[in-house]
């Protein structure tokens, strides 16, 4: 069970209030009509799916209903940070301590 800090509510709440929404920081192609099938397919379906550090979107569904980002280890499930939409992640690689 995750205990997630909502960056908008400013509180830790239980996982059941939230829904995960997949990989974060995907940018929609500026001009979809100009995309090749490959570019558009990559945007729609292809994902990093890392074993390790993952930036992902969550929504505080039974709360403020706002979307935000989280950086989480997909191996240990540890949430390293949550941050608002539009912000850049501060954790982009494991520290030595987190690796162990």
């Amino acid at each position, binding site marked *: 069970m995750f205990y997630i800090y909502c960056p908008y509510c400013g509180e830790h709440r239980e996982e059941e209030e939230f829904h*995960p929404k997949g990989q974060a920081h995907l940018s929609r192609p500026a001009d979809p009509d100009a995309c090749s099938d490959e570019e558009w*397919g990559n945007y*729609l379906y*292809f*994902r990093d*799916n890392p*074993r390790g550090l993952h930036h992902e979107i969550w929504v505080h569904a039974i709360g403020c209903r706002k979307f935000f980002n989280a950086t989480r280890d*997909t*191996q240990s499930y540890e949430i390293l940070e949550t941050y608002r939409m539009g912000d850049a992640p501060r954790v982009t690689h494991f520290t030595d301590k987190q690796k162990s």
Partner: protein
Amino acid sequence: MPGHVLKTSADYDGETSSLPRETVATEEDLTMQKYSGFGLLKHSLTHHENWQRVWRNPKPKKKYDVIIVGGGGHGLATAYYLAKVHNITNVAVVEKGYLGGGNTARNTTIVRSNYLWDEAALLYEHAMKLWEGMSQDLNYNVMFSQRGVLNLGHTLQDMRDIQRRVNANRLNGIDSEALDTQGVQEIVPILNCSANARYPILGASWQPRAGVARHDAVAWGYARAADAMGVDLIQQCEVNDIITEDGAAIGVSTKQHGTIYGDRIGCVVAGNSGVLAKMAGFHLPIESHPLQALVSEPIRPILDTVVMSNQVHGYISQSDKGDLVIGAGIDGYNGYGQRGSYATIEHTLQAIVEMFPMFSRVRMNRQWGGIVDTCPDACPIISDTPVENLFFNCGWGTGGFKATPGSGHVFAATLAKGEAHELAKPFSMFRFHNGALIDEHGAAGVAH
């Protein structure tokens, strides 16, 4: 025991040992003994202490015709059919843990083929036909029990979808019937079919040929039969890179045994597919999620079929041992941890108790998770890749077990010929570029 010295693995493996690294095979080891009732009787006379080893534990060769990464059910089935159907026996199955220790050991063992779309229905029905002869084919009892599967409908829309799917199944020659509430109640008297239920059961689709199988036996049976034909099963050997040359895969680099070369490489690694694709330098349309399951304490026989419900979201059967085997949907977040959240288990059991109020006081015994590789259209990927000679069989998501023989059979053909088997063609990873998706979210059922 005097005079009975057990050889340790160090005797076989250690550099200091006088024995060659490759295990010494006696005459008896080279030919696989056939399992039979008579054999069981014979071995009972010696207290079952003289059974032949089930498979060898060989040292990898420098080079193989085909390397299969992943020693689960699908990988082992692939190796078996490569040897049996295509006569390619210079094959290695490279497994980082032990055989059948991933999702093969973690699923809820349901086998069915009542999928909606032609492409998927034909693939799963291909598997179903192989299931029906598997124990005889492998000379290994996989305990395939065709006890039927019910997919319940609780709403008018559910019933319309069921009718459509049943009709589609019949057109594809798959046994499938639509039942009303009474028909369901007759098959499962303990199911709560009351009209006053919160989600009343309006009917179901029923596939009589569907059922369950003994999951571990499937992996072991394929492993034993493949090994007997000369396939090298290399356990405790983790691939940490895929070696490419001029855009073509030529081998794998392993943690324990260095580089192993192969003309063709097939990756059948389920939840870790994304990790291997990254080694080869491309992305897959796959995300890895935890999928949990649980079993109750063993109870007397009470449920002789499989009941699934998409609407209340759970499925249940009873094993031969007596435990209720229960599962439901994935945890929504990406995860490689082979565990999930308690909230998901709670929802699963809520669904089971909604259907079977009498199970409310049954105690759950064990709970676990596996890493499933889900595709956006709930269909697998059996495909060539941007890297030449490298093939992936993945994306089975939450429903791979039922497909084990069919998956192995078509992937073996794909690896043998270097191009997709007829049944595998629609399942190219490039369908996510050209848009030819096969939307099986409905028939993929509870888990999606």
